[in-house]
């Protein structure tokens, strides 16, 4: 018995494992779950350029990004919760509205600086409640964040009385909402900056590494000597900060804020994340993929709008897209095993 023969044996086994992969329908579906977004986004844009009147104008393209920015910012942040394997944060609905209302209402009475600090406190509070319930007590993220949405909106309606808040007509918030650099609206720049910053956080730091590792294998990550509760709280904190920024951007659009501003943001953000190819099972995905998912969903919606298709059909299309994408994700996971 020599080590040399042992090594030959091992190598053969490894080749055996690698050669086992065959290309069937399931493998193609799995591949498109991971990489389909690149192809489909390109195809969609080409189709829109060729066949949809009014798509290829500078005004329309910047408008698409402008409208996509708030949901996009929520989505790039929520990518952290999804990659950590905790499904999603439904409470972004309440977080976006809370940030918007606080920004307008508090800056009217106490100035914008105090307003931003207050909104930040609210974001941290959301992250702590969600993160501690899910990360420390191991409660189900979907149920916890569903509950904190309820709590958040309840508190917001109690304080706001459900009324709309208007910012001053010549204030900094309004100026930000309509401001542009050349043809590019500030909102789109915020989305881009958030994407780059969060991408660095996910790919280059130990925190981002632990988020991914936790999403792949919680137990191995804990036994690697890391504080898993902090990882989960951190994932919810990134989401909460992003939702706060999105709330600011949304409030600045119209210079108003109301407690139901964030309705639908949970699902639309998740749609962008899943379409981008980030797995709902955790561990696999990226912030740039989410940005691409945002672009895909926004362009699709824009095409439907320009083609005169009604809102009801748009909803059906988006819903069907998600059922399709999530199914592909599940098939991809099965194939990988």
């Amino acid at each position, binding site marked *: 018995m020599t080590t040399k023969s042992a090594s030959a044996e091992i190598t053969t086994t490894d080749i055996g494992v690698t050669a086992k992969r065959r290309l069937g329908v399931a493998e193609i579906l799995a591949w498109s779950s991971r990489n389909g977004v690149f192809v489909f986004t390109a195809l969609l844009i080409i189709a829109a350029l060729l066949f949809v009147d009014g798509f290829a104008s500078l005004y329309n393209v910047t408008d698409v990004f402008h409208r996509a920015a708030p949901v996009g910012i929520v989505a790039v942040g929520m990518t952290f919760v999804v990659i950590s394997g905790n499904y999603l944060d439904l409470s972004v609905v309440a977080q976006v509205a809370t940030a918007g209302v606080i920004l307008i209402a508090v800056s009217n009475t106490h100035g914008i600086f105090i307003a931003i600090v207050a909104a930040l406190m609210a974001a941290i509070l959301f992250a702590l409640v969600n993160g501690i319930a899910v990360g420390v007590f191991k409660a189900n993220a979907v149920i916890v964040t569903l509950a904190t949405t309820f709590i958040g909106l309840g508190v917001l309606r109690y304080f706001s009385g459900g009324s709309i808040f208007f910012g001053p007509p010549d204030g900094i918030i309004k100026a930000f909402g309509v401001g542009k650099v050349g043809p590019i609206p500030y909102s789109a720049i915020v989305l881009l900056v958030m994407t780059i910053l969060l991408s660095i956080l996910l790919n280059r730091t130990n925190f981002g590494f632990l988020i991914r590792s936790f999403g792949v294998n919680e*137990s191995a990550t804990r036994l690697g000597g890391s504080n898993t509760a902090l990882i989960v709280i951190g994932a919810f904190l990134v989401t909460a900060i992003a939702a706060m920024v999105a709330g600011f951007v949304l409030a600045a659009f119209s210079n108003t804020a109301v407690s139901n501003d964030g309705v639908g943001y949970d699902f639309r953000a998740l749609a962008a994340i899943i379409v981008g190819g980030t797995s709902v099972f955790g561990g696999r995905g990226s912030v740039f993929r989410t940005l691409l998912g945002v672009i895909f969903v926004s362009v699709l919606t824009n095409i439907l709008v320009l083609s005169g298709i009604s809102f009801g059909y748009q909803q059906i299309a988006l819903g069907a897209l998600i059922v399709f994408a999530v199914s592909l994700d599940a098939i991809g996971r099965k194939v990988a095993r």
Partner: protein
Amino acid sequence: MVGRDLGLDLASKRTTTPGAVVLDAQGITAPRVNNVSVQVRAGEIVGLGGLVGAGRSELVRAIIGADDRTAGSVTLTHNGKTVTVSSYQSAVRNGVAYVPEERRMDGLALSMSVEDNIRLPNRKELSVAGFKIGSKVAQVAQLLADKVGLRPPEIRRDVGEYSGGNQQKVVLAKWLGRRPEFIVLDEPTRGVDVGAKAEIHRLVKEIADQGTAVLIVSSDLPELLELSDTIHVMRDGHVTGTLSKEEASEKSVMSLASGEAIVRSS
């Protein structure tokens, strides 16, 4: 069974000169563990024998804090400094390494690369202000993969693509980077082919020879006898006997593990 003859063939004589006590666990009580005390010295390999379900895995997990313990104290002594192990994280910070029984569940992130798996416990040393130093991660991972004899030594490949023996080498590699003071190995060669098994045995001896205190749980008797300097045999959460290298044999371990000796003497 295979293994016995092969084990003898490969057994290299270890010159055991155990140093000072590194791990001192007193009165450990946890589910399925009843008031057990264990000491491991620097450079010593202590084996835990017994039947499956005797409480050995539960004992080692309670010692290092991977599971909660209801009673007992654990201290680690290194360079004349003694620290109390209160949580698993504090254990790892103070030089404890743990190769768990369930390597696919607890030991590795299978869909991550070898490099990332090695990075996990070493991430702080391989970063500046929380930012990863990519070149250093790759360099250290490659060094450790070569050291444990990973084949093929491709650190960018997913761990899940490797055979069981190679996966176990990755688990060892990720902890060797920390130069542990105390390492726990729970069934280190379960589901591992004979070639890799011999290599893992060689590595374990090497780790001990470098002064690390080693605590090993194994249901593979030839392995336990070959590696251990001292063997504690457990049954129903108690230590039923302690055997020196000279006293230890398949028969003496099995009689303590099964309680046969107790029945015969009464």
